[in-house]
């Protein structure tokens, strides 16, 4: 081996040694449990004297015939479609607004951050109070405008929309942080040049700002998609999936199957479906992050 080659080999070993503890912890606490879940999804749930046995894809077959699974999946898709575009749009709007020269900017930023830094479990409680029939501020303000009383969390038609609003409230500020960071990196020369050329503000946004923000938008988008499948605290606190599964999301259904019905094998199979969906988004982010989205 040449001296140069061996030095490079030594540097690599150094690097791997530095990475090793972190990798070991992650493998032990996230990768290994996931593999265990994957294996479990091919076995039956042990019941009484009858132990767990290999059943092949039976758990997955059961899923296809399970109407609640399909309902929960469509609920989740609806939840994602309702949450993502609005929260990203709002985040961008707020970031541009806060980035400008306006009075009380610091306070405004703080106001946006507040929902973001609150734990989801607290957010869920806050909105539970807010939506409460009769007492809740939401109902009181609506009744001041003449809207009749309505149990928003107790009705099949409105409950999912209520959860969507909570998620937007919680997430828009978080996404704004990333947009704000990207906006502050942008050279002011661009805006000056555009102003000299006589471009309107809208035109400047559409042709310069927005394309330059593309990497941030993609990063935020993938996070938003993942979050819409990964959040569950609000369902636990506010609705418990009800009424009649109208607000149950995939992850909450997994929790129910595993801990209310004690069918751990079926829960494992459901988990694998969720994981497959999420892994798809994560890999997509990894593959697209460096390419194609940059403005040239």
């Amino acid at each position, binding site marked *: 081996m040449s001296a140069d080659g061996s030095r490079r080999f030594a540097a690599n070993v150094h690097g791997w040694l530095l990475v090793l*503890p972190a990798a070991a912890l992650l*493998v032990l606490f*996230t990768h290994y449990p*996931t593999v265990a879940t994957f294996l479990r999804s091919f076995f039956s749930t042990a019941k009484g004297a009858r132990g767990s046995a290999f059943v092949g894809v039976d758990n997955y077959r059961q899923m296809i015939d399970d109407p609640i699974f399909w309902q929960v999946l469509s609920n989740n898709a609806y939840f994602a479609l309702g949450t993502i575009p609005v929260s990203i749009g709002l985040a961008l709007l707020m970031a541009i607004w806060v980035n400008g020269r306006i009075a009380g900017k610091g306070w405004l930023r703080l106001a*946006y951050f507040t929902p973001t830094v609150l734990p989801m479990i607290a957010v869920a409680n806050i909105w539970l109070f807010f939506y409460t029939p009769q007492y809740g501020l939401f109902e009181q303000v609506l009744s001041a405008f003449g809207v009749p009383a309505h149990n928003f969390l107790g009705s099949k038609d409105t409950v999912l929309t209520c959860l969507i609003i909570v998620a937007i409230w919680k997430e828009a500020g978080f996404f704004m942080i990333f947009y704000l960071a990207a906006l502050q990196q942008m050279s002011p020369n661009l805006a000056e040049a555009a102003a000299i050329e006589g471009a309107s503000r809208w035109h400047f946004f559409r042709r310069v700002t927005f394309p330059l923000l593309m990497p941030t938008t993609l990063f935020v988008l993938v996070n938003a998609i993942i979050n819409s499948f990964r959040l569950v605290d609000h369902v636990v606190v506010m609705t418990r999936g009800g009424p009649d599964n109208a607000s149950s999301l995939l992850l909450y259904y*997994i929790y129910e199957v595993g801990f209310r019905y004690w069918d751990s094998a079926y829960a494992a199979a459901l988990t694998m479906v969720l994981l497959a969906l999420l892994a798809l988004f994560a890999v997509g982010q*990894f593959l697209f992050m460096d390419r194609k989205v940059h403005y040239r």
Partner: protein
Amino acid sequence: MSAAAHGETRAVRIGKMLLRAALLGLFAFFIFGPLLNLLLWAFAERWYFPNKLPSQYGFTFWERVFNPRGNAMASLVTSVGIAVTTVIVCLAIAVPAGLALGRLQLRWRAAIMLVFLLPSAFPNLPVYVNIARVFYELKLAGTVPGVVLVHAAHGLVLAVWISAAAFASVDKALEEAARNLGAGAWRCFLTVTLPLAAPGIIAGGIFVFLESLDEFTGTFFVGVPDVQTLPLLMFNASMGGNYQIASITALLLLVPSVGFMLLVERFLKPNVMATLGR
């Protein structure tokens, strides 16, 4: 410009202003309404239907929460203790990894990054269930070290990402200058690289602290029933219909979060944020 056209633009301008004010009002209600509701509950002594607002305000519930022998104070101490330990464990592991991933020309770096990236997509709940089972056998279930390990694993992904980004944004020329002036590798790291990357690493530590302080699901599965953190206390209070205690606990949780958020704004420079996830 004719008088008529001028009048029209003024009408349009007033209309626009009204529209903007209405939108702003709606927006303000959207952001602050729920928080206002929380404040009402935190200070409500009595609130029965059909009263629109609490009929009596007071600090009785605050006294109960801040009672030194009450379980709220004990939860606060537990929560902060767990969070601080989690940050120490996490940074001790994440800083070397971040240095290697952000600075060294590692072979198979992409594959290693994938190992670190994937957990951010894993659903936590099934993972916690499996961990709880393993911890039960190791007698770690229901103990503080068990909860710290779960929180550290949870915060590690973000900590590694942020410190890798922080190390990557340090100018290589400065290191080379230090080496040329005769500093050894270790001294160069301690006096040049680490201080320059420190703001990003501190921000990462703050994120880990907050994540740990706010973590609910993992603590629920691994810590119950012996480890009671503030989020668990709030959950129990709320499920028991004790809205005042739940509201006050939520406010307590808000204080460190907002404080640290202000700090993060200082430490987390845009050029570090912009390299996140790249």
